[in-house]
């Protein structure tokens, strides 16, 4: 029996306020299309999640992904290794493994490959600088009096003394740099953040470049450190009723334009109308009870492929102008 997985990103994650969505107003201009074009998935990998429990239906523990490529001085330059924050490390690890699995050569990578990344909230710099900031607690009503003091001069002094400038580059877009540097990729790129909704747009950007012949291969990447202090605070503030077990993880898939049934799987992308999605099925996807942020859609695909049960994976992003559906069929 075919197992079918449907994932709908929440409206809030899609960046659309619920009151803006009126199903009756959805344009009817996007009929459900037959998919005649597709991409094929040549390699994939997900870096080991660092949470022991991912939902109720599946347990992953650190290190269980046996194919993990350790980041060592043989794979990444020592200088680069030193300035990597966790999302950088996870994604670079995933990308190295996926590229190896797909069998891409150095000449394939240089300019024939693009990198398309979704990242979570910026965490690296914040984590590094937080200790310095803690000594500068102030109330929200002190702005006027600041003007009469050396407050910002003292702040600058404290931060300068305690923060290593190297770490300032650990930011939301640094995973893109680290993958490009580690693999020598000089092709086009797109990086978006911070939610699962943006993953669909990144996929579409990769799709567009492959279809237009701008690249032969696309590294579809996602990485997020959902367990960091800053991510937890931000998520708690934004989605207090939707808290799930956070996981830190990254995924990388190697895509190329398909002319034959895919080596691993094939991915189709289509615009559909709203009824094609189904919020009700969210609860039946135990693998995704964990919150992997922007990595969630690709994690759904890869977990399903890895578990071998799924022949068909169907991801839908709801938007106020319709739905963007991604269908993955295992070969």
């Amino acid at each position: 029996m075919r197992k079918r997985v449907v994932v709908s990103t929440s409206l809030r994650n899609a960046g659309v306020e619920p009151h803006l969505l009126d199903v009756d107003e959805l344009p009817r201009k996007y009929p459900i299309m037959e998919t005649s074009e597709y991409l094929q998935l040549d390699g994939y990998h997900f870096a080991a999640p660092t949470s022991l429990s991912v939902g109720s239906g599946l347990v992953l523990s650190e290190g269980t992904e046996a194919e993990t490529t350790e980041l060592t001085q043989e794979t990444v330059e020592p200088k680069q290794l030193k300035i990597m924050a966790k999302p950088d490390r996870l994604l670079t690890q995933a990308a190295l493994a996926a590229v190896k699995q797909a069998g891409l050569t150095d000449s394939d990578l240089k300019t024939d490959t693009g990198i398309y990344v979704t990242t979570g909230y910026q965490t690296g710099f914040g984590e590094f600088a937080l200790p310095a900031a803690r000594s500068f607690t102030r109330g929200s009503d002190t702005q006027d009096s600041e003007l009469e003091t050396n407050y910002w001069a003292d702040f600058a002094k404290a931060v300068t003394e305690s923060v290593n400038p190297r770490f300032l580059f650990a930011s939301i877009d640094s995973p893109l740099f680290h993958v490009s540097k580690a693999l020598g990729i000089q092709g086009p790129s797109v990086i978006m953040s911070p939610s699962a909704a943006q993953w669909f747009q990144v996929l579409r950007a990769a799709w567009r470049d492959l279809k237009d012949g701008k690249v032969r291969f696309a590294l579809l990447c996602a990485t997020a450190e959902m367990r960091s202090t800053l991510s937890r605070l931000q998520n708690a503030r934004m989605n207090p009723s939707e808290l799930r077990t956070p996981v830190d993880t990254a995924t990388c898939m190697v895509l190329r334009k398909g002319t034959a049934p895919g080596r691993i799987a094939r991915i189709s992308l289509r615009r559909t109308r709203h009824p094609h999605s189904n919020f009700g099925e969210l609860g039946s996807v135990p693998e995704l009870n964990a919150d992997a942020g922007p990595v969630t859609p690709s994690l759904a695909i890869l977990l399903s492929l890895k578990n071998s049960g799924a022949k068909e994976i169907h991801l839908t992003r709801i938007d106020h102008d319709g739905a963007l559906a991604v269908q993955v069929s295992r070969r």
Partner: protein
Amino acid sequence: MRQRVAITGLGIVSAIGNCVNEFADSLFAPKAGIHPITLFNTKGFPVKSAAEIRNFGPFTYPDRKVAYAARAITEAIAQSFGENGVPREKVTVLSLGLKHNFVSFPEMVSANFITIGPDECAQQISKAAGIQASPWIYTAACTASTVAIGTAARAVADGEIDVAIAGGTSSCVSPEWLLTYALMGALNTDANCAAETACRPFDRNRTGMILGEGAGFLILERESSARARNAPVLARICGFGSSLDAYHVSDPCPDGAGALSAMNAALKDARINPEDLSAINAHATGTLKNDSAEAAAIRRLLDGVSHETPVFATKPFTGHLLAASGAVETIAVVSCLTQQKLHPTLNLVDVASDCKLNHVLKNRHLPLRYILKNSFGFGGQNACMVLEKGDSLDE
């Protein structure tokens, strides 16, 4: 691009003007927007100058960039669609270039307040500007808004969407951001330097960038659609390309290889050759390494073709708006195309030996058809766009 993409509306908030007309007037006056910082007390602080927004407020939202974006989007939509706004049946996206969210440390620790993240920022902008649009949020450092515009233009050209409200917004004139960039060694922190001349791209005495704030947005749609509703075609986006240096986390590849690759990709996408370019709007931050690498890349692009292609830079007027810089500078390019003249690169007095190009030192009137817009960012991210002139004002 498969179909011609028209720019039918512009909106801006910048240190040299809080609407497009005021902005363009300042460009050609020419009048810089970089001044001593007034937003906080800089006594003992390492950075003294920035391009702040003046005569703006009050702020309804705690994050200033939301207010800047809302104002700019409102102006752009009004120019393109009038007071009724974007018709609801149009499939519309808000393609947004943002710097990553930055925690306002003291407030977070004491009041549990976090400066809003990119997704929340997009929501608030949509709400403040009264638009219903899917957010596409690009966080590609200093190329973010150029990528936001370029990829949105491709989606418009391919018929995926009807209308793109594309651009970027930034409110990085804050102690935290200024200190971050000062620690990185990217800012001009010379206390003896007059604010108005502190940003000196391509000059022998350049010492770093000056941060600015503001927002710039463009309305993009297929030219056929714009013509059908008699909308103004202010300019066209006809090519976009991006590349990665894969070289260094902050420094550009010295020979400009990555930048050259992105420029060539944009020209190829536009189906034009380097000799077709009327001018190049440089990224030109005023840092030693960026300007040198960009000049090398431009010389390589024009090698054997024409070394007379004029090169001009906008940051001495507006400061560096980081993620929003590409959008604001694209509006400067459209202003040049519309008025058929180039604004000068301010403060360029003594051209550095490694930055020799045909620099524009004062307003230059000339026939302009295609202008290449460059944006380069930390991590070796490069994005370039080709713009073509639209309808003449007297057509």
